[in-house]
């Protein structure tokens, strides 16, 4: 394969990769937006719940003894169909109140611990686990010390539906955009490489005697080479004839 063909193929591969990257960027950006919108919708719920719990903590009761929190988490879950679970756990990572009452007393998953340890931004942390989204907040006492954590588990069903539809829409668009873009890039690349090697092809044609000398870097050289070849052939042939004539003389 000629090097110019290889480079044209590399340019096509780069263009194709960039197209897929663009599709990925649009998908990633809009999918993240859908996720952030879902999370934003529970901001209010999370804030209300946190303030209610913190108000009770502010009365001086240890978090584990505030029984009203169980009612609060159950009521919070009931207000939004996308909320799968609401949980309050201690700084040690033990579930204190949970809409799934059977889980009370159990330890939180390792991924939650990791998120709390290293991924808290503005008292908010989030984890994606088994397709669901867990959004949490730190609850603090009047001295600003963490007294526990709140976690709301959201269903990813709506996000998944949105993502599937988005993939279909982008694939359909890519199906006609990609061939056009690749064809245009191919035409441009072929034209450019044709332009860069035009004088080389002219040189070949001149050397083969198929084309009259033109202009450019190679034109003079080609004419010189052609003349030298013709002269050499003529000289050798004349010499051969002269040599043969020595016998006749």
């Amino acid at each position, binding site marked *: 394969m000629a090097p*110019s063909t290889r480079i044209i193929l590399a340019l096509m591969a780069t263009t194709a990769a960039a197209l897929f990257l663009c599709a990925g960027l649009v998908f990633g950006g809009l999918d993240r937006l859908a996720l952030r919108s879902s999370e934003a*919708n529970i901001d209010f719920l999370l804030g209300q719940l946190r303030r209610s719990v913190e108000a009770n903590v502010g009365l001086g009761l240890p978090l584990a003894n505030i029984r009203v929190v169980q009612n609060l988490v159950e009521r919070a879950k009931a207000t939004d169909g996308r909320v799968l679970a609401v949980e309050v756990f201690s700084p040690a990572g033990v579930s204190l109140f949970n809409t799934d009452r059977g889980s009370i007393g159990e330890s939180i998953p390792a991924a939650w611990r990791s998120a709390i340890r290293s991924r808290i931004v503005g008292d908010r942390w989030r984890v994606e686990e088994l397709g669901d989204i867990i959004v949490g907040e730190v609850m603090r006492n009047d001295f600003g010390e963490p007294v526990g954590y709140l976690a709301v588990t959201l269903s990813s069903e709506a996000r998944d539906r949105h993502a599937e539809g988005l993939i279909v829409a982008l694939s359909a668009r890519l199906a006609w955009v990609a061939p056009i873009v690749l064809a245009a890039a191919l035409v441009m690349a072929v034209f450019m490489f044709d332009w860069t090697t035009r004088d080389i092809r002219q040189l070949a044609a001149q050397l083969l005697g198929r084309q009259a000398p033109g202009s450019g870097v190679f034109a003079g050289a080609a004419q010189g080479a052609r003349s030298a070849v013709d002269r*050499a052939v003529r000289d050798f042939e004349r010499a051969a*004839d002269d040599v043969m004539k020595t016998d006749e003389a």
Partner: protein
Amino acid sequence: MIPATRSKIWLPAAAIGLVVAALIALAGYFLLQAGLRHSTPILQEATRTGAAAVGEAVAGQFARALELGIPLDKLVGVDAYLRRIADGSPQVGGLALLDGDGRIVAATAPDVSGETFEIAAGGARASLVVEAVSPLFEDAMRRIWISLSLAALLAGVISAALTAGYLRLSWQPSRERLLRAVDRAGEGDFTEVAVFETSGPFFAASQALAGCVEQVEAARRKLAEAVATIHAIDFDGSLGRRVDTILQPLEGRYVLPDRGGDETQRAEGPAPAGGLIWRAAVVAGLSAAAFPFVGNFAIDRGTTSLSAAWVGVVPLLAELLLFVLGVLAGRVAAGRGGAVRALALILLGLSTGAVFWCRDYGLFVVLRGGAGFAAGLALAALLGHGRARPRVLTLALLFAALVVAPLFAGLLAEAIGRRASFLALGGLVLALCPFLVGMGGDRAEERPKAGAPWFDPATALAMVPVSAFVFVLIPLGIGYNNYLVGAGAVAMLGVAALATPRLPRLAIGAALGAAALLLHYAPGGDVVSAYAAGAALGVALGGALANAAGQPRAVSAALAAGAAVGLLLAGGAGQFGFSPSLAIAAAALLSMALPLVTRSRLAPAGV
């Protein structure tokens, strides 16, 4: 260079780069339109739903007050309450509480409009107006537009670089060789062989020239046959004397290749370096594209065996150490280049991709170590068997590792996230493996000249802060969970390094000093300062590398040592609480003092 060929390199490169960038930008626009057509109604509905939930909850609170018999105009702090709700709910732009006659009791703004929630309790009536907005949408759109623009720019830059690289490293040498062959043929010397290629226009021209030479050879053969015939019947030597007289004018006039048969000759000697350089650049770029994620991923996996300052640094140190071992192993394995390259690339792909499934810190360190070893082995096996031009190779590696790789990584993370990016990078290495291994035979490695320096202290001093900046300060600073922003700082460093010519040591020290000041006095997380510091560090690195051009062994050792010290300093800074900028300032002072301390043989003449 042949006159007038410079424009034939940069013009096509720029044109192809621009066209590809424009095409990708257009494609990105059309793809975004398709995405928005699907997503906008869903997102608007989600925003309305969220705002409605807030409206219902807030209206419920006011209804409760009315139930308790508290008139709305007697409620205290309603304005502040509404503002707090609006501030805490991204999908709520404003709230207004109206009494039964429609007069505003409290509002976050004078002109709030939107969905109205009726409040009726305790015999009184009121209403709450909730304005739904989506600031998230505007932010997300801005980010998508920036990402798409960068993707178009990156595709254009890569296309232009590929074109320029091909034209400079393959097209131009072939063109010069062909012109030389044709020129010599014009002078009667038909021995010059034209090009390396086996197909394409250069090969066709070369064959045409070979066809011309063949005509001359045929005529010469005819003459030789005539001479042989005469010699066969020359019994007294008289004919021979006459023949010699005929042949005398031809002697030395024409030079023909001494070969049998009529096959087309191919050029001998070293093949053009382009193939080696782009392969090495791709390997370096794909390896470096993982760097922005390593510290972040390590911190997420976490470990109790190390202090927090070292959690993100240790995988990088392991990777660097094993990279050096890989380079040494690759040099030892010379002679089995193809197999070594293939094995190294497969290991690199698997080690990088497997991080996708990695949940354990220890395993992560092992995988990154494996990736480092494989990258070192692959690069040594690639570069140890050819004669790449050191300066062009350095520029290609800088471009791939410090410009393309961080931007590609940032965009990849925007598209598919950090964890899947490891998988994508590993998959890319495996997919490109057949092209990267190459088909060429092995050549003996060029031995460094006797007495050539083995270490360049100026490059090492410049590399120390660059390593801390690229591997730790940016990924765990402005680039933490914001890879595209971090990528910009590293790309600035790369561009500055590429653009910087040879510099006096004083200027290199001044650039390092400027970077130290910028990092020390700029507020934490300030993007502009980080970008400016990146550019200053790039100037220092680029100047040091340009000064040490032509001494690959000294530069390689200095880069490895500088990178290791930079990582240790970054970890130590976290552990002992000193500012990394102090270490950069120390490097700056040392760099400036270096010529005074030692008359290094590497000090460039004339600068």
